[in-house]
């Protein structure tokens, strides 16, 4: 069986990030950073299971080869975690309130999409679009907060900046392709395969940003 190795290159930075992120627990970094580390560990396990599923793992459970049910579930879990992280790091009360109420609504839509609308075995396009747009907005709000920060932060040394940069680029740039992915899976699988490198490349970029983020330590804004 031919295994396209370039599809799994992102495992290198992702695995390294999962190893380095353990320092957030050991060094007792603040809560948002621990949640971020947890998200990376969950991402690694999801990717491992989702990769192994079509090859061997599905046989153990006597289920179909389709691993969309794993990614669809992951979309909801990751959005939940990112909502909590951004809730913690964004400081404006009105934004916090909006995140809290919007996240609950979106999670309900996600669960409905997963169970009733598309089902677990079809790509959950609605959940994906909503969560992607929300994550892009949250990233932009974080960037805005950084710009308005009165203290001094060396942004290229702040882990959260790298995390937000990675997820912003990934969610924004893959959005056009991922919107069409559900349709391609039904109508034109060749086109899905043709455009898949967009996702691969950005996934690699995202995981590299995760890795870079853990080279630094959380910064506390210095009064100027």
């Amino acid at each position: 069986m031919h295994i396209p190795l370039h599809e799994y290159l992102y495992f290198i930075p992702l695995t390294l990030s999962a190893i380095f992120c353990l320092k957030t627990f050991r060094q007792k970094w603040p809560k948002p950073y621990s949640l971020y580390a947890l998200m990376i560990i969950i991402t690694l396990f999801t990717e491992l299971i989702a990769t192994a599923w079509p090859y061997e793992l599905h046989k153990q459970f006597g289920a179909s080869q389709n691993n969309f049910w794993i990614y669809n579930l992951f979309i909801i879990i990751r959005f939940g975690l990112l909502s909590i992280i951004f809730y913690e790091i964004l400081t404006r009360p009105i934004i916090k309130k909006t995140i809290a109420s919007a996240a609950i609504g979106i999670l309900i839509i996600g669960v409905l999409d997963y169970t009733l609308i598309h089902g677990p075995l079809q790509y959950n396009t609605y959940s994906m679009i909503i969560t992607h747009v929300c994550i892009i907005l949250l990233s932009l709000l974080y960037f805005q907060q950084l710009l308005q920060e009165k203290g001094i932060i060396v942004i290229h040394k702040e882990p959260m900046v790298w995390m937000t940069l990675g997820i912003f680029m990934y969610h924004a740039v893959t959005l056009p392709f991922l919107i069409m992915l559900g349709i391609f899976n039904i109508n034109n699988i060749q086109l899905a395969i043709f455009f898949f490198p967009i996702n691969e490349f950005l996934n690699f970029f995202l995981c590299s940003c995760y890795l870079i983020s853990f080279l630094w330590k959380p910064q506390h804004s210095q009064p100027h």
Partner: protein
Amino acid sequence: METSTLATSLTIIISTLLVLSLSASVVYFLFTYQKKKFRHQQEIIEMREAFNQVLLQSRLAIQEQTLDHISKELHANFSHLVSLININLQEILPQAPSDQRENILETKSLAKQLMSELKALSASLNTDHIIHIGFVKALENELNRLAKTRKYEVITTKHGEEYRILPEHEIILFRLCQEVLNNVVKYAHASAVTASLNFSKEQFVLIITDNGTGFNLANALDQSGEKQSTGLLNMNKRASLINAELLITSNDGAGTVVMITIPHPQILQTIPR
């Protein structure tokens, strides 16, 4: 069907490129803006530090002027008054009854002592005088004053070819040493004071050691706010003004070592021994 596939592909490619360039622009803007902001804030910090430095220098200049004024007052008025007292006593002495003569002679001797103390004090406060005789001589005078009290055994050692540095640096260094010696007299309960001066082109090192009770440096710095004592802070500030490193090593009951190092001092002239 083929046209539809091409149109879809083009749509994905164009929209992806568009979003990519927009996202990259956002990130680029964020980083450049933040970089500019950071540079601007650094400039503000540097300006503030420069301002504080100027403020400190002016404060020290005012302090120096005041000391100078006091020195001149001591020399001109007080010394003059003590001289008059001495002359008066001299005149009274022949007419005084024999049983009071001894007291008058004693008073005369005390007046003389007072005169010499006033002169020494005046000299140590006088900026022009310190610049004239140089830091090393001024420090030796201070140490001699300590030795004269007979409470301290004073040892001075010099290594290397002696030189003079910038006069304003010498004044600051001398005031710093006065602060150190003042602390020895006030708090150390010491019986011996050692001053070691090391002259080299690379650095000037002055080490003042006492065998007194010592103190806990961290506690002293913590309590300086409560006790409104600015001695240690002033010493650090003075040292920073002349780019000197000040290292104080002390422990309860183990004496104190104060080391002042001036790396690459601006040597004005060497003084032959």
